[in-house]
């Protein structure tokens, strides 16, 4: 319920100057209501600006400034170095590539699997299971950082419990290309909180699938598959895409887990930013970190735009 809606529904609203005119009490009340609703969202707008706008502006400002002050493009040039030749990509471009790749993989796999898991939970007859899994998802979706890393290293690390068990039955994780501090390790660890997150966000949408639609489809002789292809999936599509976008963002920007897990063995943008801002070895290069942050901001903006385009197409079905 927003200002724009209020404006649209009230095309003949009076100008602010006419508010006090006693002959138009109705439009006065409407203007007042409009003011009220504007007032109601003010805290949100202020909060959003302080939490998102100000830091974003600061990042942009710092990204285009050098240590000596004054505007410069040198930070940008540095992070984009080697972009003309794909085989000699600079380390920061590799960082962006890896981060996007990681974001995509850990959005697609849990994004798809999560829908099935959520559907299985939703249609389960056990009330207890449903409540346990929804609470569990809420907890696990927020599990990350050093604790998560430690848990996985203790399980799947080189001296991990599971590694030792598998080794005892003749399976070597490193021989099948799995390395806890490599790319595969990060993907596996991310699944741990990405999957519950997807379950969490997609469950309400599944609840929106009405039983009557299914019955109607069956009455017209549609098989279960046909129902899903023509009704279920199209209806769910905007929510699935939205969920995947959320997963992409969370994997693309996750810092603590990846930092403690890989220790810099994989080039990832958030870790590179951290190296410039918190490191013990590179002094006075924080602007490069801000430049990388600006790059991430651009990538996320592009992804958001693509998402809104796809979503617009996908939600055509719903009109």
């Amino acid at each position, binding site marked *: 319920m927003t200002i724009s809606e209020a404006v649209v529904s009230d095309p003949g609203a009076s100008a602010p100057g006419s508010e006090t005119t006693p002959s138009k009490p109705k439009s006065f009340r409407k203007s007042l209501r409009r003011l009220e609703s504007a007032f109601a969202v003010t805290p949100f707008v202020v909060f959003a600006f302080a939490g998102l706008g100000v830091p974003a502006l600061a990042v942009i400002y710092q990204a285009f400034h050098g240590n000596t002050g004054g505007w410069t493009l040198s930070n940008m040039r540095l992070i984009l170095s080697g972009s003309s030749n794909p085989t000699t990509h*600079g*380390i920061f471009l*590799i960082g962006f590539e890896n981060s996007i790749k990681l974001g995509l993989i850990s959005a697609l796999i849990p994004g798809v699997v999560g829908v099935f898991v959520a559907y299985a939970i939703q249609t389960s007859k056990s009330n207890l299971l449903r409540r346990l899994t929804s609470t569990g998802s809420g907890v696990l979706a927020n599990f990350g950082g050093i604790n998560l890393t430690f848990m996985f*290293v203790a399980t799947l*690390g*080189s*001296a991990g419990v599971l590694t030792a068990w598998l080794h005892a039955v003749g399976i070597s994780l*490193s021989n099948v290309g799995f*390395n806890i*501090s*490599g790319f595969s390790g990060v993907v596996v660890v991310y699944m741990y909180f990405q999957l519950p997150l997807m379950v969490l966000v997609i469950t309400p949408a599944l609840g929106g699938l009405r039983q009557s639609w299914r019955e109607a489809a069956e009455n017209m002789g549609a098989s279960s598959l046909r129902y899903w292809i023509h009704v279920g999936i199209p209806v769910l599509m905007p929510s699935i895409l939205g969920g995947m976008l959320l997963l992409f963002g969370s994997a693309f920007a996750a810092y603590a887990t990846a930092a*403690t897990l*890989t*220790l*810099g*063995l*994989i*080039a990832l943008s958030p*870790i*590179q930013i*951290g*190296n410039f*801002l*918190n*490191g*013990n*070895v*590179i*002094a*006075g290069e924080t602007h490069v970190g801000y430049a990388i942050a600006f790059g991430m901001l651009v990538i996320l903006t592009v992804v958001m735009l693509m998402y809104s385009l796809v979503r617009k197409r996908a939600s055509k079905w719903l009109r």
Partner: protein
Amino acid sequence: MAPRSITRVLLAGATLASVAAIGVTAETGAASGAASVNWGKVTHLTKTGATSMSSLVKAAKKEGHLNVVALPDNWANYGNIIKGFSKKYGIKINSENPEGSSAEEIQAIQSDKGRSSDPDVIDVGTSYAVTAKSEGLLAPYKVSTWSEIPAGLKNPSGYWFDDYGGYVAIGCNTTTVTNCPTSFKQMSTETGAQGYKIGLNNSPLTSNSALAGVQAAAIASGGSLNNVAAGVSFFATLNKNGAFVNTIADASTAQDGTTNVIIWWDYLMANGGIDVPGWKVVIPSDVLLGEYYTQGINAGSPDPAAARLWEEYLYSTTGQNLWLAGGARPAELAFMTAHKTVNQTTLAKLPALPSGETPQYPSTAQITAAATTVNSTWATEVGASS
């Protein structure tokens, strides 16, 4: 080495000049009387008068507290040093963010500026002290034992001065490893026969000590302080051979066996730093790389007298011997050894240095260059071989 070697040359010439300059400040300090001493401007103590040691103690006690930052209790014996200072002078120490990094220390003195919680003193990697000095964040001060700090380990004007350091060492669990490595060369030839699981104590992309491990590996395998690429290749080889464990190697990974060999500062592993039965620390036979941490006083220190008293305490025989008890080599070690004021028992516990090797100390410029190289090649070289 650039800044430090320049320091040595300059110091010889600058000594007379600085002595003259000190004389002037001292007189103004003394003349202005005890009540009006601005301790934030005092650059050294005088034998008597308003800026003497006893006046400093009185002023520091009046301030009553001292803010320190990024000093872990188990790092170079800081836990006991803090306790000792508090007990001796009755000054409360507020220890902020004990696990913080050098960068965070600098951020803290910038962002807490003007607050009563602003850190009074910092203990950082030398490069950070140099940067902080150039940004005007540090106040010059020369402790009473200034002449006992080797010339290469201090800023001639007193803006920063090294406190303690050590050498890159190889720690190894002698109970689980039969042939413990004593050189970098020995580690690079391991392909599984010895069962080495070699770890660095952190990521060399962010940690000064881990970076020193890479620099040491570089020197031992044909590179130098100016060419750290050989060190990156060294770890790529280890990784390819399956001997490198990419983890934060410390006492707990030594305990559970994730790593049985650790490349780290000697003082953080010796003397019980890694309290694992059979843990032995040796200085590698093919490289002697040392580094010091650096003290500085915040120019905007809220407790300027306590800050100066803290430095006097650290550079007293007591303070230096406390660092030594933590396995670190204090800046005045050479002087104290020569004058027999060093604690012989704790000195004897330090890992022996290989005879005939001259220690190398990376300069700030070399550390920065090495960090840049490691940051741009570690993932592609070492990561690619995993």
